[in-house]
């Protein structure tokens, strides 16, 4: 059983991060939330959208990398995440291309 412990310790233990890291990430998430809310009260035109989405992406990335330990995860995990996000964007881009290019031909319904 002692052996078992050691061996398992090598392979199975994810990275044990210090508490300070969790607090730092948490702080960043809170600051991000505060900024998005604050920015929403100022009219910056399309910048509003860019800031809101930029911060959301940053927050999500922080959660994925640190809370979900992906920073220390295998390459395969990265592939799964990046791959599925890529697929999602592919769906958005292709479907929206249809809507954006409607009417280019000048024939209703084409």
């Amino acid at each position, binding site marked *: 059983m002692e052996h078992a412990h050691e061996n398992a310790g090598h392979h199975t233990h994810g990275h044990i991060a210090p508490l300070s890291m969790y607090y730092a990430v948490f702080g960043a998430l809170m600051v991000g939330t505060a900024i998005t809310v604050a920015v929403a009260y100022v009219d910056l035109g399309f910048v509003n959208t860019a800031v809101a989405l930029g911060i959301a992406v940053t927050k999500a990335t922080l959660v994925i990398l640190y809370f979900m330990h992906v920073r220390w995860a295998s390459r*395969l995990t990265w592939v799964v995440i990046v791959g*599925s996000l890529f*697929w999602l964007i*592919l*769906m958005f881009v*292709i*479907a929206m*291309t*249809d*809507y*954006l*290019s*409607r*009417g*280019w*031909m000048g*024939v209703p*319904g*084409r």
Partner: protein
Amino acid sequence: MPSPHAPVTAPATNYLNATHGLASWLLTKDHKRIAILYLISITLFFGLGGLFAGIVRLELLTPQSDLLEPDTYNKMFTLHGVVMVFFFLIPSIPAVLGNWLMPVMIGAKDLAFPRINLISWYLYVIGGVLTLAAILGGGVDTGWTFYPPYSTVSPSHVILAGLGVFVAGFSSILTGLNFIVSVHRMRAPGLTWFRLPLFVWAHYATSLIMILGTPVIAITILLLALERGLGLGIFDPTRGGDPVLFQHLFWFYSHPAVYIMILPAMGVMSELVAAFSRKNVFGYSFVAFSSLGIAVLGFVVWGHHLFVSSQSAYMGLIFSILSMLVAIPSAVKVFNWTATLYKGSISWDAPMLYAIGFIGLFTIGGLTGLFLATMGLDIHVHDTYFVVAHFHYIMVGGAIFGYLGGLHYWWPKMTGKLYSEAWARVSAIVIFVGFNLTFFPQFIVGYLGMPRRYAMYPDEFQVLNVMSTAGATVLGVGYTLPLAYFIYSLVKGPAASANPWGAKGLEWTIPSPPPTENFLVTPIVTEPAYNYNPGREVEVA
């Protein structure tokens, strides 16, 4: 059957008789038993779907709608499509043959998540029961495509049937998840990616589609149910929605889903062609990567179902050219299988007959897919019987031939029994003839302009429809033959040896039927798949 190679007497206990009683089956976590559960349940649904098909064909014997009210007819083809697609063909090869073989082929004792595997079967059953409830409650009449706004207003059980499909979808997601994780994490030592049987590659590619595509249809159907049940305005134009958005979301899954149906059959094909010509598959890595190519490219062509739906013409052109590209990896596969036969040692056993049938029918089905992908032509043939003929050539002529071929090939392994080879050959031929008689006339009647989903049709189409109905009768008889001799073999069939075909592959190294844990000792793999000529590998141009 060929001369039984190195007859091995099966050990007294195997996975079939290791434990007894209904509970030992319904609560099993053994992938092989789960495969058998699936085999039984999808056969029932195939019978049901076939029954609906029979009714459809009977009604179409005459131009009038005399046997059935149009309403009933509409329910019949809808249920036929829903049952055949979601409850038969999508689970068929992956959940039966894949479930049984994937762990064995990668040298593992089971899939990574045996309990989830069992849950997936229960989800399938629950989905099936929901759909049956919808059927018994009066049916659905939206077509298997569930297009709104008709599906929002249709007075039939759309939500119940949709829920059935939704739940069955999760069954398929879990199967795909299990395969992916198992292939990554459970391969036996020495079993590198390029030593995997092509069956595994094909199922890996299929699993990618299952996990990336299926959730989209799940949410789409859920949104439809919310719109119908709660009045949300997502697809209904009077509430600001766009019905064409539903079509985008539906086909984002359902086009790739047609590759869920064909890729596993292609995997079976590679095994059959190799085993019955005792030769390694020509261009192994091309066949392997073409599976991935089909899975990936298959995701970006869905709009070829929307050429006349008011989709933007430019997007249509892009979808058209992408659909052309997805044909290339399929072509590569067909040519490689053909080339595999060259200088093989070819036996004419029943599984090989199905394989040969597959190559021919899939080629026709696939090439007629190109008619549909060609925009100028699809305007005319869209939603006619030409489309119906196209997809039956691929799904019945292709996927079902692959499924039956695989079932015949692995039956001795799965059950430990030999079926009657003579009857098997007869039924292969009957099915082939019946199939062509049923669906070839539909190409003609389709180009003539007969729309699909028609309970009544103009008189001049009758002769072709009669031919088609006659063929369906033959086809129906053809399908009952395997059912009969398979069941007979369980009772009276001679015992099968470990490797009755003299084939290569991990599954043929273990007893028939194997013990619950598949391998008593974990195999170590030292050679590529299909290594019929150890030590003699020559590249010829």
